């Protein structure tokens, strides 16, 4: 059996952990320079506010309902996520952390004495008791069905966040009540095409011919169908496939008009991309670097991108930062209010499968990079790095409504009245 455990509105719930004053209030978390809504607690959802919408459109409504607005406090979420995964991990022999707020458990042939419902409730209870985070638990025979169960636990039945699909009857009942688009691995576009063929519910998808769907769509969809029928096809390694492109990009906190600020920001992104490349054991051979004005603003429009090909694929921070620093000269244009910039590694090779050029001058230093990554892992990200990104950047992301860093900064410890 497999379980999917995921936190309810994780970012919004995390904001409530150390701030009891807001636990009963609607909480909305913003991202991207406080422009977009990325999480809503249950109370906020009931106001009719939608996820991923622009904040300014619902600002008035939220203010009228005394909602709490927060910028994304990644330090806090990361800390709570790690703790949560550790607590959950104690309930199964095998755990796969899928994202910041959800993980799969694989029980294999093990069975809890008190039954699956009780086991699911124990997980929910433990996470709540130890961290004050609400989670849902879905248990079924395959990862995809565990996702289905998780959906059922939240949207169907008694909605206490727990569902166990341990018989064909229960699986059928839920799949019949579920729209095909809500199946894990079926996107909006695929769902639209499936609907054209008369496949509307998850149950109809489960009863389609997997081979035909493979021909028409992809091998992934074939796997989804097989998983809905109780045959495990998803392997964690396959799920963790390396990214084929790696981007780091963000809007500036306020418009940038100086080349120095653009350069610092590009170098900051280059450093992030280099770090991500090393984490997945890849090197970049082609970088794209870009900046543009705000396309939605009534100011002069501008968009420029340059590419940089490395003589030899690299993931050395210094090489990427150097490329970014040079690119800033070409990308900058005086008189433009720059809104956003970014760096992307668009051609990537695996370090293991790399072909080296015997005449190439190796500029990278893997040991130095390893050492740098180790220091940054231990003492916090960006403890050391390229000075080119600046020390007191004034282009940084806007996080106006940031809550304290309760768990990562001594000065922000939660205060307790005595």
């Amino acid at each position, binding site marked *: 059996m497999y379980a999917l455990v995921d936190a309810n509105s994780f970012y919004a719930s995390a904001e409530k952990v150390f701030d*009891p004053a807001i636990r009963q209030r609607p909480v909305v978390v913003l991202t991207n320079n406080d422009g977009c809504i990325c999480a809503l607690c249950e109370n906020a959802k009931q106001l009719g506010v939608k996820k991923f919408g622009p904040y300014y459109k619902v600002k008035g409504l939220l203010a009228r309902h005394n909602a709490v607005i927060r910028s994304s406090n990644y330090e806090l979420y990361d800390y709570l996520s790690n703790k949560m995964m550790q607590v959950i991990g104690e309930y199964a022999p095998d755990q796969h952390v899928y994202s910041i707020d959800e993980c799969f458990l694989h029980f294999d042939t093990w069975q809890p004495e008190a039954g699956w419902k009780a086991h699911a409730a124990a997980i929910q209870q433990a996470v709540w008791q130890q*961290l004050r985070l609400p989670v849902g638990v879905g248990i079924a025979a395959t990862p995809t069905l565990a996702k289905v169960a998780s959906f059922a636990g939240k949207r169907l039945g008694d909605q206490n966040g727990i569902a166990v699909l341990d018989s064909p009857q229960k699986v059928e009942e839920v799949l019949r009540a579920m729209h095909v688009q809500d199946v894990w691995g079926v996107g909006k576009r695929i769902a639209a095409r499936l609907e054209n063929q008369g496949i509307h519910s998850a149950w109809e998808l489960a009863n389609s011919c997997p081979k035909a769907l493979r021909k028409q769509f992809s091998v992934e969809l074939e796997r989804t169908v097989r998983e809905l029928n109780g045959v495990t096809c998803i392997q964690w390694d396959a799920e963790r496939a390396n990214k084929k492109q790696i981007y780091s990009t963000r809007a500036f906190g306020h418009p940038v008009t100086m080349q120095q600020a653009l350069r610092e920001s590009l170098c900051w992104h280059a450093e992030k991309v280099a770090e991500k490349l090393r984490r997945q054991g890849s090197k970049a051979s082609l970088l794209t670097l870009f900046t543009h004005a705000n396309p939605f603003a009534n100011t002069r429009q501008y968009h420029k991108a340059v590419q940089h090909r490395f003589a030899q694929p690299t993931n050395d921070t210094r090489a990427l930062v150097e490329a970014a620093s040079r690119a800033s000269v070409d990308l900058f244009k005086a008189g433009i209010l720059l809104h956003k910039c970014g760096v992307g590694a668009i051609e990537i090779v695996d370090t293991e499968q790399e072909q080296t050029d015997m005449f190439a001058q190796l500029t990278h230093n893997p040991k130095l990079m390893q050492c740098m990554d180790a220091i940054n892992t231990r003492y916090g990200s960006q403890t050391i790095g390229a000075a080119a990104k600046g020390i007191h950047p004034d282009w940084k992301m806007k996080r106006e409504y940031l809550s*304290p860093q309760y768990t990562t900064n001594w*000065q922000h*410890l939660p*205060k307790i009245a*005595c």
Partner: protein
Amino acid sequence: MLQIIPVAAQAGISGFESPAAEYKQLALDLDELLIEHPNATFIGQAKGDSMTGVGIFDGDLLIVDRAAAATSLDVIVANLNGSFVCKLYDRNSQVLLSPGLDHQPYALGEGDIFEIEGIVVRSVRMHRYVRWLSQCMR
């Protein structure tokens, strides 16, 4: 912000190996002593003087364990009507005691929001100024 990384100074001079090297053990770790359930524990800071009778003073660190077993009389941190408070909790009579000078017991009523956050399993006094804890932001 400049961060200082503490690294033991080494001169790189090697001579005879210390005969004690074989007996090297891991250094004592305060976390091990103070924190029993790492996933369920958080640190807070005491504000106020209502708990001086049990040795908790303004500015002390409170180590709060959400997984510790409860007894009939515990020093707890609770959410009382939307604020974190630290009190001595008499479970049987549902009263929050403040063992400081001149503080009255608080009997929990029906209108109160009351959630126990955890049990204060240790508290830490700072007898001297600690740079890390100064400059409270809020």
